[in-house]
């Protein structure tokens, strides 16, 4: 049953993603991409479990590297997106 339930979530999330992004104006394509890119750093959540297992084995070390890489993605992605969006201004403002 677990598989069915996870696949359900997957399907709904994909449809939701399509609906959310479809109307984004071209002006925002780059920030949208880098913002979405930062979200893909969510894999850090999966990495934390392996990195914190305390087992000291290979999986532990792989997890730690994954945490570092995913954090680059998260911190860099959100920050650079914010930097870009701060520059977008309407006429007269």
């Amino acid at each position, binding site marked *: 049953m677990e598989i069915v339930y996870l696949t359900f979530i997957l399907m709904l999330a994909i449809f939701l993603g399509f609906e*959310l992004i479809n109307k984004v104006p071209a002006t925002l394509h780059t920030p*949208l991409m880098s913002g979405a890119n930062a979200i893909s750093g969510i894999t850090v959540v999966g990495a934390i479990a392996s990195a914190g*297992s305390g087992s000291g*084995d290979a999986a532990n070390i792989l997890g730690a590297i994954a*945490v570092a890489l995913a954090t680059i993605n998260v911190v860099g992605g959100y920050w650079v997106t*914010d930097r870009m969006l701060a520059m977008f201004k309407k006429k007269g403002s």
Partner: protein
Amino acid sequence: MTLDLALNMIYVVSAGLFIYGLKLLGSPATARRGNAISAVAMLIAIIVALLDQSVVDYRWIIGGVIIGTIIGGLAARLIAMTSMPEMVALFNGSGGTASLLVGWAALSTHNDTFSVVTIFLSILIGGVTCSGSLIAYLKLSEKMSGKPIIFSGQRIVNSILVLAILVCGVMLTIDPSNLNYLYAVIALSVLFGVMAVIPIGGADMPVVISLLNSYSGLAACAAGFAVNNNILIVAGSLVGASGMILTNIMCKAMNRSLVNVLFSGFGAVSTETTKVEGEIKPISVEDAFYILEAATNVVIVPGYGMAVAQAQHAVKELQLLLEKNDAEVNYGIHPVAGRMPGHMNVLLAEADVPYDQLIEMEEINPRMDSVDVAIVIGANDVVNPAAREVESSPIYGMPVINVDQARTVFVLKRSMASGFAGIENPLFYKDNTRMLFGDAKESISGLVREFG
């Protein structure tokens, strides 16, 4: 059990915030807040992950977070806006690689068939994202030639590669304890990422970047299945879907199918030479100034050349002077101008150009006949009238900005070398076109000085 339930409920909150944040990212007025909300969602998800009972040792995690924060933070702060495409490519790559490692690490604790299949997927997609992004980075930063790398038998090699990956994947599923299959899958996936991106030319990079962006999400999603984590599945598939949409928009803007972009190098088709009638008419900065001074409606069409010359601030200065001279100034932005979706918009935003003056292609084209002067800065293929007129042209059918319908067209160009795709551009030979040769930034600054 109750703690577990509570933590999972908080994941639901985090997913909701991700969705709300993405929704706000859809409008320029709310986008910054949307990004911040999405960051909060990420923070919540990370805290929940840290509170999980299976996490007993924080040393490795803290080490990883510190290293990642320093590298990511420095990169985000120091990067120039013109280098944004390669930065996004690198961030994509690191996310993809992380998903690969998560899958790899999960193999030691999850070895039922379903888990192994999803682990295989996260390694495959993660590996392709990792090396593909790296190649995209090298091409974008011009550390490697942007020309498509094509050799005979490429498709056969790639087909064999895909087959080998699948075989190793099946073997891994049958016997997850044999790590040789795992290593083979990792190595082949990484190799496949390289093979997939080298035949794609620099002008097609907006498609590749959005596709890799989508992959990095899908890799996280597969990793989510592997470690049984809902938030990874939800957030990963949101990113996967958004990347797919952008990829689709980019393909439409080039009138090409995704398959065509991925499997046929642009350079291969353009070997035939079309004879273009007419002659090139160069213009001096001084003469260009006289025409601009009399113009009341000016459209600026920027391309990758503006990014290379870092000319955006000079362009803004010229815009202000023209406006002071009572001319209406707009920018015509082609969806694939530059090296990533929306590249020009970011550069012009950096130069303080308000976003309501950036007009999309479909909107600017009908107004083109009332434009006195169209200034093309470092754009080539996206303003090529051959896309409408020459049926044998490789870009025939691609929607372009019809600058040739303006009364006068200035084309700012370094030399007469053809554009990235190597396609002849009849625009340069039209009666109403004047070529302003030289570095784009120098030429624009020259015009600014004439006004001053």
